[in-house]
């Protein structure tokens, strides 16, 4: 085992302590030239694969997650720095390269010998078989902190600290137990010695890493749970932050694309003559479609694409507009949203091959003995992600190698997908990941990277592919539309005796439709009702749809019994102390008891997702049928808030994202294609519509939960419940904009 110089590292690949206790240990003889660039100057020492120290005592944390605005990189660095006893001012971080050593699944295998349960159901995709030897370096499923942070960063930080202590103990010839650490310094009080970590980095790097370094307890935290400024923010106020679209590769040209508007369609006839007349247009290219099994989303029908390559985006766009394309729809152009919802309705009613999420007690018996039966049916539309930054990727393919500049949620998966499309070994694709201008699940799907790579291969120049907003809205992997039917029995004592629910299409996470409430008999299940519309993970995945359904229906049960909806829930959560605590907190801080003026209303909802419990209270004012959301009070129990302000920002963000969808969000299908195209018809919540948001954090000490997604699910039902409180009209379909609330809705099943 050599000294950890860059050279030793490259030639032998021996990384003492690489991966430490976290199972990504790079074994002797394991050659990992991809890791070499991590040590970029000779005065740096990689202490383990997660942290390096330079001669100025600056610790650089290597973070295997992308930054899409959620502050995950800062929070992860906080976790490592805490255990390392680093001086936060001497900590910086960089994103890990997309090489298998940093894949989350390895992390998972390393910790507990199998993929942790949190990964399987929650990471960013649907129907994923983690057992496949697939590459996952996913940022999503709110798992950065929970998985990488808890199992990777903290252990790596603690191990680094112990190795540095051991190194100092050997050099100073004193017992390790007498050495203390503080702010990136090693201290031996008895001999009055003090030295910066950097002094011992090289020695430490040669040591055997401790197999189980001891972690701090929460009361010892000085960085975790304390406010730190996010490090990426200064670059985001002066225009210097680098998003993928901001790269400039010498000789680069630009491209824009249109894929078959009907999903799975192909190019029948293409007349490019007018397009080629546009000044600056270089080439017109047709790219293949695909309908292979996608590890993230199952089988999806992706059509052929026409692309125009030009000297700039503008001429490329002009060229695209000038293309005369006749598409072959392969008979898929008759489907519309109405037919899709009708199909869902039929399939739910037929109940063919219905599978259960939960089956307990005897629902039929409860219905037979019911004093009252309550029924309702809900539906939500397809939604686009509409990341602020449209899809884009820059690629350069030459000499059997590909370089890719991208902002994505899964750099390793993108590397492999691009390699496959180009017929290369994954090692020949080099991915430079950038800040994402929003991800929300969309940027886990590599379609746009593949397009850029194929175009670069075709024109033999670096190509920057930029999608128009229209393409972004029309070629998304949508949040699935869902229909969900409910029936509940209330017995003679006024207790909810049974809960029956059937919905279409099972996705992830598996637990999304399950209720926390104490209802004796439950029959929750689903039927399959596939469509031709590509779908994918959308912020909080299935929790957004099921949160709306179940938290609306529980509210309807309270109304049927004429019980206060907050107290009704509280009573059914009597055995769930963490749920009850967030519910009570939200209600208390919102002033639930205070009466509201006529025309105003309050609604409450609760949804646990990704290990974090969130209750939200919404206050609305309804004037002439117009709903104004005045205020949202959220109570959040993430177990432990690593970065309290970061958590609050994420909850605010998740609330606005969900509120935007609940009020305005709707992708409709007409003739097999998406009808919307840009922000004028795919409306987004703006400042004047956004409420005051108050977030209250409960550090219950439970397992650390996610932050990026859990704010979203409860907002739609809390809003619908508030509208009911204000107007007496029950909103069973989203978005709210489709309702005319000037009139009391009596039969609210169909509004379209």
């Amino acid at each position, binding site marked *: 085992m050599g000294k950890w110089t860059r050279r030793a590292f490259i030639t032998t690949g021996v990384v003492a302590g690489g991966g430490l206790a976290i199972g990504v240990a790079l074994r002797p003889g394991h050659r990992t030239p991809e890791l070499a660039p991590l040590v970029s100057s000779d005065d740096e020492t990689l202490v383990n694969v997660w942290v390096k120290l330079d001669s100025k005592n600056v610790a650089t944390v290597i973070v295997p997650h992308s930054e899409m605005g959620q502050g995950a990189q800062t929070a992860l660095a906080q976790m490592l720095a805490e255990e390392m006893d680093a001086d936060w001012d001497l900590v910086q971080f960089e994103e890990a390269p997309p090489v298998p050593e940093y894949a989350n699944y390895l992390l998972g295998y390393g910790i507990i010998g199998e993929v942790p349960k949190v990964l399987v159901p929650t990471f960013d995709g649907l129907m994923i078989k983690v057992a496949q030897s697939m590459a996952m370096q996913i940022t999503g499923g709110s798992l950065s902190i929970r998985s990488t942070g808890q199992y990777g960063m903290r252990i790596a930080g603690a191990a680094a600290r112990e190795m540095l202590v051991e190194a100092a103990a050997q050099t100073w010839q004193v017992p390790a137990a007498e050495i203390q650490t503080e702010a990136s310094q090693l201290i031996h009080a008895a001999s009055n010695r003090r030295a910066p970590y950097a002094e011992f980095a090289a020695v430490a790097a040669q040591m055997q890493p401790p197999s189980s370094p001891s972690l701090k307890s929460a009361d010892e935290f000085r960085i975790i749970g304390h406010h730190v400024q996010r490090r990426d923010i200064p670059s985001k*106020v002066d225009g210097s932050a680098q998003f993928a679209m901001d790269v400039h590769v010498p000789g680069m040209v630009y491209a824009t694309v249109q894929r078959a508007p009907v999903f799975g369609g192909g190019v029948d006839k293409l007349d490019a003559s007018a397009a080629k007349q546009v000044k600056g247009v270089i080439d017109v290219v047709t790219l293949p479609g695909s309908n292979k099994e996608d590890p993230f989303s199952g089988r999806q029908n992706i059509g052929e694409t026409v692309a125009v390559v030009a000297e700039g985006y503008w001429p490329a766009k002009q060229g695209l507009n000038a293309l005369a394309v006749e598409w072959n729809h392969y008979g898929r152009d008759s489907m519309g949203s109405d037919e899709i919802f009708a199909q869902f309705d039929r399939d739910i009613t037929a109940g063919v091959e219905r599978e259960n999420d939960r089956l307990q007690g005897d629902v039929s018996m409860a219905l037979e003995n019911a004093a009252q039966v309550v029924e309702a049916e809900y539906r939500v539309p397809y939604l686009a992600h509409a990341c602020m930054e449209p899809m884009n990727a820059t690629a350069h393919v030459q000499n059997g190698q590909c370089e890719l500049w991208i902002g994505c949620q899964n750099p390793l998966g993108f590397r492999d997908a691009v390699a496959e499309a180009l017929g290369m070994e994954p090692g020949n694709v080099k991915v430079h990941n950038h800040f994402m201008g929003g991800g929300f699940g969309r940027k886990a799907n590599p379609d746009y990277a593949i397009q850029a790579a194929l175009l670069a291969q075709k024109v033999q120049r670096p190509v920057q592919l930029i999608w128009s907003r229209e393409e972004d809205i029309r070629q998304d992997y949508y949040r699935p539309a869902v229909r969900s039917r409910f029936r509940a029995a209330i017995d003679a004592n006024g207790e909810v005796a049974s809960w029956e629910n059937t919905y279409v299409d099972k996705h992830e996470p598996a637990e999304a439709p399950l209720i926390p409430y104490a209802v004796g008999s439950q029959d929750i299940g689903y039927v399959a009702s596939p469509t031709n519309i590509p779908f994918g993970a959308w912020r909080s995945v299935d929790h957004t749809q099921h949160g709306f359904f179940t938290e609306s229906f529980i509210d309807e049960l309270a109304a049927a019994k004429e019980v206060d909806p907050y107290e009704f829930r509280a009573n059914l959560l009597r055995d769930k102390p963490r749920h009850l605590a967030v519910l009570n907190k939200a209600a208390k801080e919102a002033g639930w008891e205070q009466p509201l003026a006529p025309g105003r209303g309050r609604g409450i909802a609760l949804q646990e997702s990704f290990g974090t419990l969130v209750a939200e209270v919404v206050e609305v004012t309804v004037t002439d049928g117009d709903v104004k959301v005045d205020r949202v009070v959220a109570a959040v129990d993430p177990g432990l808030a690593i970065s309290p302000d970061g958590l609050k920002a994420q909850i*605010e963000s998740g609330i606005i994202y969900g509120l935007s969808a609940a009020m305005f969000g709707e992708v409709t299908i007409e003739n097999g294609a998406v009808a919307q195209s840009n922000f004028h018809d795919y409306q987004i919540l703006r*400042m004047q519509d956004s409420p005051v948001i108050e977030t209250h954090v409960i550090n219950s000490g439970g397992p650390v939960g996610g932050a990026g997604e859990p704010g979203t699910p409860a907002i739609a039902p809390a809003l619908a419940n508030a509208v009911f409180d204000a107007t007496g009209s029950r909103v069973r379909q989203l978005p709210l904009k489709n309702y005319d609330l000037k009139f009391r809705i009596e039969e609210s099943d169909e509004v379209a």
Partner: protein
Amino acid sequence: MIRLTVNGKEQELDVDPQTPLLWVLREQLRLTGTKFGCGMAQCGACTVHVNGTAQRSCVMPLAAVQDQQVTTIEGLAPSDDELHPLQQAWIDEQVPQCGYCQSGQLMSAASLLASNANPSDEEIDAAMQGNICRCGMYGRIKKAIKNVAGVGYFDPARGEV
């Protein structure tokens, strides 16, 4: 040849005069802080100042800014080692998440405060309504603007419900 001044610097450009200013800034001048979001004046990501007033550069043909003064996010700060007060407020309030919309938000806010040092809530809403933040940071943006405007911010914890 089109002549214009960008961040105080004279530029002469041989580009199709119908090209939107946004793409000229990004591709010819490599001022990539100005962002593309929609291309049809719907989102505000591309906001710059033309003669001190916020404009959507994605729908502004280059010909329209002939001989005009254009300021982008890169030119918002008074000097290389100073920040515009709004930029400082954005850091203090930890406004940006993904950050993609924030150049445009800052340019709209700066244009507002330049013409109205003490905007009301409604005036802020009106000035900022063309700027979408998909990360939903409207509350923080508003607070940061108010901090600079030097007016009190409605504190929900104390205010009446």
